[in-house]
């Protein structure tokens, strides 16, 4: 059952068509990986879906409800959460307080919000750092924090924008396991990634963007063997068995 549907989404900036009639759907409890060269429109797509950009045409439907044209806070309330390419956190707050901001979407009271935040921190492995200032986190910890912040809003769909960027291989593995855990708990996830191995190992479906258009969709296996994708992005050295 398709939880998220994107239909003919188009976004232009002046003369540049950043997203060109993009259509796809994501089933519940699956992971969609979105890959493609820089400038192909991946983050723009996220921004359109999550309400940060207005679209020129097209529709986005979440669990049967139209979310196109809504403001970001409205999109969040309808069940879609995202992280940003540059992991931004509220540096003047503690780790716990950061997550509480998201928790308030579910319950406005301090007590329950704190509990939900603690629970989510435990899930991402940051519980021991709960009362530390978020300023002092290392980059992978910061990633996990922004993941926690989005997660605590109990979304139906979670969108992660280049969550693996700049991480060491061991850190990537940790994060992949975490994402798998989250998926097991019923989450639907979209991931934009450049770390190909990571996204290939975790995605159920991969969608490839180039110059604003979808040029291929399929299982990781199919995509790795797709000539056009290899030429546009993966490089000839990449032929997955």
């Amino acid at each position: 059952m398709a939880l998220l549907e994107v239909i003919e989404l188009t976004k232009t900036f002046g003369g540049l068509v950043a997203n060109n009639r993009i259509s796809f759907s994501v089933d519940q409890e699956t992971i969609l990986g979105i890959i493609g060269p820089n400038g192909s429109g991946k983050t723009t797509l996220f921004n359109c879906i999550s309400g940060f950009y207005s679209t020129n045409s097209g529709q986005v439907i979440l669990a049967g409800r139209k979310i196109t044209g809504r403001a970001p806070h409205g999109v969040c309330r309808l069940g879609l959460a995202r992280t940003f390419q540059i992991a931004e956190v509220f540096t003047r707050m503690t780790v716990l307080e950061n997550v509480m901001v998201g928790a308030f979407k579910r319950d406005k009271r301090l007590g329950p919000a704190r509990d939900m935040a603690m629970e989510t921190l435990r899930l991402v492995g940051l519980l021991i750092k709960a009362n530390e200032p978020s300023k002092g986190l290392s980059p992978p910890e910061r990633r996990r924090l922004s993941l926690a912040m989005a997660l605590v809003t109990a979304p139906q769909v979670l969108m992660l924008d280049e969550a693996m960027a700049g991480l060491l291989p061991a850190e990537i593995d940790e994060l992949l396991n975490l994402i798998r855990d989250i998926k097991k708990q019923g989450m639907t996830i979209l991931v934009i990634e450049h770390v190909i191995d990571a996204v290939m190992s975790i995605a159920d479906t991969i969608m490839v963007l180039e110059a604003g258009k979808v040029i291929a969709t399929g299982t990781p296996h199919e995509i790795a063997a797709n000539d056009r994708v290899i030429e546009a992005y993966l490089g000839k050295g990449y032929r997955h068995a």
Partner: protein
Amino acid sequence: MKRLTSPKIMLMGLVLVILLLYPFFLKSSFAQHVMIMVFMYASLGLAWDVIGGHANLFSFGQAAFFGVGAYTSTMLYMKLGLTPWVGMFAGGGMAVLLGLMIGFPTSNLRGHYFAIASLALLVVMEALFTNWTFIGGAKGISIPVVNDRPWLDMQFHQTKTGYYFIIMGLLLITMITTWLILRSWIGFYLRALREAPDVAASLGANNLLYRLIAIAISAFFTGWVGSFHAQYVLYLDPPSVMGIDLSVRIVLIAIFGGSGTLWGPVLGAAILAPLMELSRVWLGGLGYGLDHMLLGLLIVILCLIEPNGVIKLIAQPVNWVMNIAKVKKGVLEGGTP
């Protein structure tokens, strides 16, 4: 129970007791006036800080809320005989309305742009009020002196003690309300929206809504102090209740003391209000502005030494005192220091 006897609470309790007894020991009219000014400016500074310190909207237009509050309650009192106790709330309410009207069109503005827009708005409002004959225009309004029902009319003429306790009550309410709001989800959203508005929005925080809430809070607590002021001074005209001087003083007090904290504006008022009153009496009487000159100098010096406000300056010594108290207490209870 432990929290109730912590050194911080005990200190606050001590201060409260002192303040309650103050007007009975220092009976001079001037001494009471100074404290009334301190309470007044502390309330105004706190109200400003809700939008200035937490929502990042530097408003130089607070005087507009103050003036609207003053005029509303006064007009209701003069024309309908409505007691200022209710008029105060009406004044606050009108200020909120004004704030909402201003908040919508300026919702895109940040930082310096908002500051200048608020300045422009204030100038416009003062000019409009000056030309509005219904409320007395430039001549202002003199509230008739009434002696027989001091509490109902909020006019006290034997001593200022009545005024003292009223404004102290207003301040306490403002402090408690602001504290409660800022530690609640509203405070979290405001701080989040200030720091990283995109992230906050993606987590469900509605920028416009919370901005308006912050403005409404600030407007109300400024407006009702305006009503109080009208009853205290028994005269109002646009320059005195809607002038730019007032707005600037409020901003300075909040920032001088330390914006973004609960005690900062209070501290700022505690230091600057007596200074302003004293220097006005000693130096300002000459009409040459020496008192303001000193104020200006003081501000510049402070900004250079401790830009985060006096509260940061005294944070160290205060912590030291607290720690000493804790240690002493620990020893008294038989623990190891």
